[in-house]
């Protein structure tokens, strides 16, 4: 099974209280998982974060349960991730040092 086959996209709805997003991300980072793609945004009623992770089936189960144990997490869903979701440039990564220096001098 190739690496891409393990890529899962998680969609987590949460109330945007202090630290909730960090607790969600910490559930992945404490397992030594890289976070190649993270996008958090405000939804109609709550907030939602999409995280793409390279995980096995056991880790998926652990992450689901740990996310649900966070007091302000409302819902967790997931599906296979498309590679263009997580290999593309996330905005901060698309800004080069040279560009930021130019902007600072302007």
């Amino acid at each position, binding site marked *: 099974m190739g690496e891409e086959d393990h890529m899962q996209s998680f969609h987590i709805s949460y109330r945007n209280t*202090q*630290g909730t997003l960090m607790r969600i991300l910490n559930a992945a980072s404490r397992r030594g998982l890289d976070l190649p793609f993270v996008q958090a945004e405000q939804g109609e009623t709550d907030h939602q974060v999409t995280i793409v992770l390279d995980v096995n089936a*056991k880790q998926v189960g*652990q992450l689901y349960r740990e996310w649900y144990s966070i*007091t302000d997490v*409302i819902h967790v869903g997931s599906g296979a991730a498309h590679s263009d979701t997580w290999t593309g440039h996330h905005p901060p990564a698309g800004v080069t040092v040279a560009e930021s220096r130019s902007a600072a001098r302007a």
Partner: protein
Amino acid sequence: MHKGAEIVLQCLRAEGVDLVFGYPGGAIMPLYDALDGSGVRHVLTRHEQGAVFAAEGYARVTGKVGVAMATSGPGATNLVTGIADAKMDSVPLVCITGQVRSALIGTDAFQETDVFGVTLSLTKWSRLVRTIDEIPDVIAEGFYWARSGRPGPVVIDIPTDMLKAKKEFSGPVKFTPNARPADAKDGGFTDTIVAMLQQSSKPVALVGAGAKISGAIPELRRLLDTLNIPAFATVHGLGAVPQQAPYYLGMVGMHGTRAANTALHETDLLIVFGARLDDRVTGEPTRFAPHAKIVHFEIDPAQLDRVRPCDLPVIGNLADTIPAFESEMRRNRLPDFAEWRSVACGADRAEVDPRGLAQPTIRFLDELFSRLPKDNVIIADVGQHQMWAAQRYCSDSPRGFITSGGLGAMGFALPAAVGVQLAKPETCVLCVSGDGGFQMNIQELATVHRLGLPVKMVIIDNKYLGMVRQWQQLFYERNYAETDLSDNPDFVEIAKAYKIHSFRLKEDAMREFPVSQETGDQIDRFLSTSDPELLVFDCAPEANVYPMVPAGAALSEMLLEEEPEPAQ
């Protein structure tokens, strides 16, 4: 108009708090200034770690929320070990920390630490208070999460200007959580467990801390009597199952009994009641209960499937799920497990009498425990003495054995004993430590003396970091790297400096068995006085804890006793 500090204390009173443990400092001074007349008693420890462990001791023995207070920066960071300990062992704990004033947050001000960030992965819930208006809601919600579901630690960080500010205050509030799909309870599990029992020939029950936290001890004991299958407990489950129950096999895990570990290895159906199944219980996870289907009663779904997938998770409070299981069981006919029971509980699996270098120490603990008054609590620190004490613990009191099990934090016992004794002033509180751990919070002797607490303290003094040394002996070719504590101070003299009576008992006193009248009288007097006292017991430096499951081994591969020295 009320100051923020007064509002905090009124909210604590509304949550039933009348005792807090702490250590003052700059940022939390307004809260200390408001203590007088608040109805909240403050106990000054001599280190913030002492305060948080004392709050834990109070919480563990009562089941109520323990409260610790500290100032910003180093005060807050000194709480961290206790917070981690409470997370691992499911202890309801609220830590209130002062923070630098709001305008200075983020400027690396004097004694500023991001305690919210530092403790994020250790807490169940936490808040940095941003306005005085938030205080009542934050405290109500913090206490709710600390005690609800699987209990755990909460941190409430309050900038000093919030504690000084004033506002109209109409009284404490109640917190009601929003419902979410994750809170749904399991149903319809009972007939499945009964069917699994009917197909099983070697079922066992494993009892963990959840049994006592849920308060479902009577229900659990009734269920186990009805099931009548071999049962055993984790270190935090000790006391949940009556020692004299004919199906009880003692403690399970790395230093568990031969009978318990063997039955767990052989079982075909493992029913777990409120235990996390960490590696100290399972041995090598891939070879844990290799023939078993697993039914896991657990309140926290995050604890499921950590070691290996369970076949039937039962999510919910044991106080709800056990009665449901029991009533279904009574409607069905179960097989008679007598044959399996006679094998698992048979005489050939009984514990052998202690031999070797540890024998005097084990006899000493047996003497000590057998002479305790019925109303007692034992608090063990971390290390060899902890495992010896757990192995020899023989009380049926569910909250009678307290220790730092999950985190294994040395230095826990003495301050925790302070909290236990304050919660149970009439109870005989016995604190058992090693010479390494006792020195980690030895300053709390001052707290014991100041409060005149009749805590009975025992140091098992082998002049080593004994458990580490044991591993070095067995697995690192006796390379005793940095575990030699032979230059220990004289603990008897140290206690005297704290104005605490103390004496030393040499292990020779235990060579004679039963012990002499004189030794017995010494122990009886030690346990019966109304003053604090320290007993230092000299233990053989190279005494080891057996049985032992080596790291990476299955539970069935335990070492039962000392290997004889090779002939020279």
